[in-house]
C-alpha cells in the first residue's frame, strides 16, 4: 500500500472474496434483477417497521456472503458499514447481533466505496484477513428522514431520484482471488453552490468529476484505461452535468454509466430520474458488475460513488448542498 499523487492509494494485496445483495421488489423487477441474491415482495420485508426492514436486508447479505464464501462468523475480523439513517442506527443494530468488531461510517451515498477503502487499509497492512464491507438504504426510511411521509400527496418533480431499497456486502481478503482492488482515490468535499434538494444528482456531479480527474492525474492514466467508469447515483440530470464538466477539462469518457440508471428501467418503472442512496451503488456493484468481472467481460472498472452532504435542517436553512465522491478500481487478475 502506498500513496500515489495527492489523494490516491495503490493497494498491493486486496481481493474481493464474495459479494451478496438483497433488495425490495422494485429493484428485482429492474434490468439487473436476475443478479440479485435475495428479494422481498414488499418494502416491509416481513418486519414491523421500515428501520427493522433495512436491518433485515443487511443481515441477509451478511449471511448470504458468508455462505457463498464458506466462512463462519468467527472468520470475519471486522465489519465496516454505514447507511443513511440518523446516527447510522441500522448498521449498528445489525452489528449488535454479531460477535465481530464494527466500524460505523457515514459517507452519505458514497458508503459502499468508502467502506471498501476503509476496509482495504486493514487488509493491505495485513492487520486483518477478512473484512466485510456493508451498506444499505431503504426507500421509506430515507423518505421519512429526508423528505415527506410516504403517503403525502405532494407532487415530486421529475428531477427527484428514488432511493434504492437494498443492501450490498463485499467480503475483502488478502488471499488471492480473480478480482483485485487495485486503486482508490479519496475525494474532496466540493460545493458548487447548488441548492435544489429535489435534484441531488446535479449537486453531486462536480465532486464526481473532480474525483475522476484527480484519479486519472494521480495515476497518470487515460480514461480509456478502464473498461467501464461507473458513478454512484448521479441520475439522469447529474450524469449529463458530469460529462459536461469533464468535457471542459478535455476528458472524454465513452465507457461511462451510472448505477442509478442501471438499477431501474427508467421508461417502464415509476422512478423519476433514477435510483439513489447507499444501496444503489451497493447493489449494482455487488451484483451485476461483480458478475461481469467474474465472467471477465469487464476487466478494469472504476466505481465513483457520490454523496450529497445535507440534512433536512441544512436545506431548510437555505444552505447549499456540497457533494463528495470516492473512487475504487476493480481489476481482474489472472
Amino acid at each position: 500500500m502506498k500513496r500515489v499523487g495527492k489523494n490516491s492509494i495503490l493497494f498491493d494485496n486486496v481481493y474481493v472474496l464474495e459479494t451478496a445483495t438483497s433488495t425490495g421488489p422494485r429493484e428485482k423487477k429492474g434490468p439487473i434483477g436476475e443478479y440479485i441474491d435475495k428479494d422481498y415482495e414488499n418494502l416491509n420485508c416481513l418486519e414491523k417497521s421500515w428501520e427493522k426492514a433495512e436491518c433485515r436486508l443487511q443481515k441477509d447479505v451478511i449471511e448470504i456472503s458468508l455462505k457463498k464464501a464458506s466462512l463462519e462468523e468467527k472468520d470475519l475480523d471486522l465489519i465496516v458499514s454505514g447507511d443513511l439513517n440518523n446516527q447510522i442506527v441500522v448498521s449498528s443494530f445489525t452489528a449488535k447481533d454479531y460477535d465481530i468488531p464494527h466500524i460505523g461510517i457515514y459517507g452519505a451515498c458514497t458508503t459502499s466505496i468508502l467502506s471498501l477503502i476503509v476496509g482495504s487499509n486493514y487488509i493491505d497492512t495485513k492487520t486483518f484477513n477478512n473484512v466485510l464491507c456493508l451498506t444499505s438504504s431503504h426507500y421509506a426510511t430515507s423518505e421519512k428522514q429526508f423528505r415527506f411521509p410516504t403517503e403525502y400527496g405532494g407532487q415530486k418533480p421529475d428531477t427527484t431520484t428514488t432511493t434504492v431499497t437494498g443492501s450490498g456486502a463485499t467480503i475483502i481478503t488478502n488471499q488471492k482471488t480473480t478480482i483485485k482492488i487495485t486503486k482508490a482515490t479519496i475525494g474532496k468535499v466540493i460545493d458548487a453552490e447548488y441548492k435544489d434538494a429535489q435534484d441531488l444528482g446535479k449537486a453531486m456531479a462536480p465532486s464526481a468529476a473532480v474525483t475522476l480527474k484527480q484519479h486519472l492525474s494521480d495515476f497518470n492514466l487515460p480514461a480509456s484505461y478502464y473498461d467501464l467508469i461507473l458513478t454512484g447515483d448521479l441520475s439522469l440530470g447529474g450524469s449529463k452535468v458530469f460529462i459536461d464538466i469533464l468535457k471542459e477539462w478535455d476528458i472524454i469518457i465513452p465507457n461511462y454509466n451510472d448505477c442509478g440508471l442501471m438499477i431501474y428501467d427508467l421508461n417502464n418503472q415509476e422512478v423519476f430520474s433514477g435510483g439513489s442512496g447507499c444501496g444503489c451503488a451497493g447493489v449494482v456493484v455487488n451484483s451485476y458488475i461483480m458478475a461481469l468481472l467474474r465472467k471477465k467481460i469487464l476487466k478494469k472498472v472504476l466505481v465513483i460513488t457520490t454523496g450529497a452532504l445535507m440534512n433536512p435542517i441544512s436545506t431548510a436553512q437555505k444552505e447549499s448542498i456540497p457533494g463528495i465522491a470516492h473512487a475504487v478500481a476493480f481489476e481482474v487478475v489472472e
Partner: protein
Amino acid sequence: MYKKYYISSKYYEVIFLDKKIFQEAIEKNKTKRPILKNSIYAFVIGGLVCLVGEVIRLLLMRIFKVDNKTANTLMLLIFITLSSLFTGLGLYDKFGQIAGAGAFVPITGFANSLTSSAIESKSEGIVLGTMMNMFKLAGAIIVIGAVSSVLFGTIIYLLR
C-alpha cells in the same frame, strides 16, 4: 486549471477548482418542468373535485333538506373522510403525483397531510409517534390561519 503542490519532496498535480465550470454545466442541463401539462392536470382535476363537492352540496340541500351551513360542513366532512381513507390505502400519493395542486389545494390535501404524517410515525408509538407528529405538515396551516385571522380580524373590527 492546475496547481503544482509540493508534498514530501515531490510535485503533485492538483485540480484547481473553478466553481464557474460547475455552475455553467448545471445551468446548461437545467431540467424544465412540464408546466403546461401540470397546469392542465391541476385545473381539470382540481375543478372536478370542486364540481363533485358542489353536486354533493346541492344533493344534500335538495334531497335531504338540510340548510346551507350544515350542507357546507357535511360536504367538507365527506371529503375529509374520503381523503383520509385513500391516504390510508396508499392511493392518495399516486393521485397527488398526477393532480399536483389539484390534490393539495382542496381541503383533501389538509386531511392527507394529517393522515400521512400520523400513519408514517405509527412505528414510534401512539403518543410519541402518531400524536406528536400528526401536525408536522398541517400545523403550518393552523398557525397561519390563526395569525392572519387575528390580524385581519382586528383590522376589520377597528374599521367597522
